[in-house]
């Protein structure tokens, strides 16, 4: 892997690092909004992969970019609904600590 000639591999490894950071954030934060931020990191890592594959023509056409656009749309929708759910959680439990939301725990 040459250091000064940027190729597909550089982007893939960067995306893998960001993905791992996102997984770490999702698993360590107790705050519901913090978990949401981790999800955004993971989705961005996936998007980097899509666009890099598109650029380096592993798949043909512009399929990668269109997939990335759909990922962005889904991410925005997911964030809107998740923030609304967090507000409901806060209204009912007075906290957004996800460990406290165990009303359905058997």
């Amino acid at each position, binding site marked *: 892997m040459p250091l000064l000639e940027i190729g597909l591999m550089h982007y893939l490894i960067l995306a893998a690092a960001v993905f791992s*950071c996102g997984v770490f954030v999702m698993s360590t934060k107790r705050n*519901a*909004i913090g978990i949401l*931020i981790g999800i955004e990191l993971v989705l961005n890592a996936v*998007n980097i992969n899509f666009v890099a594959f598109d*650029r380096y023509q592993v798949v043909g056409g512009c399929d990668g970019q269109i997939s990335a656009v759909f990922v*962005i749309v889904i991410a925005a929708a997911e964030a809107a609904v998740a923030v*609304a759910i967090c507000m409901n959680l806060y209204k009912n439990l007075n906290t957004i*600590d996800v460990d406290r939301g165990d009303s359905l725990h058997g």
Partner: protein
Amino acid sequence: MVSKGRTKLNRLLPTCLSLVLPAVLMCGGITMAQGTTPDAMGSGVPHFDGVQKSVSGGIVEAILFYIFGGTVLAAAIGVCVSKRVVRMATWLFGTLGGVAVLYFLLGANYLGVIQLIVYAGGTLILLVFGVMLTSKSPWVRFECPRGEMVVASVVSILLFASLTTVLVTAEWPAQSQSADGVRIAEFGKELLTTYLVPFEVASVMLLVVMIAAAYLARQDRDDSEGAN
């Protein structure tokens, strides 16, 4: 003394980031925009005469990649280590901006702009509003047990190591770099012909989500208030 210095650093870093990043982003955007000439919209003829190769290949692309890839990675690690949600959101802004510049580097100009508008302008603001509406003080913090922290970091590092191993050892098909990425006209045509059904489904989904979010976040509910 040490903790005081650390607090100062904590306060300084996001401020620097939020001041420097927009300027850098603008520079990056202008550089990328100069590389793409607005040629023959909608002619449908692929244009591969190498005019747009101003940043592809060579040392400039490498330097830009390392600067902005480093920004993305550093901001992602900042999200991991910061304890307060507002700080996390600030670091997330660094990641999102850096990813937008990486899109410009990859020739996906439209996606870069969309990333800035939707993510940095919409989703991040939404998250910050969520933080403000769901905490009594903006610096809400929930401690994670140290054991879980260790397990989580081991798992993440293992995940990264295994992903990297797989990526490096995998056999990729022959890569041919397209000259200028995908032009926006071609992109839009593709979106409204081949991908028409997902496009329409996405628009209906956005409507549903808009109604659902407005319903869920309503201030006082008349009928279901007594449930809890």
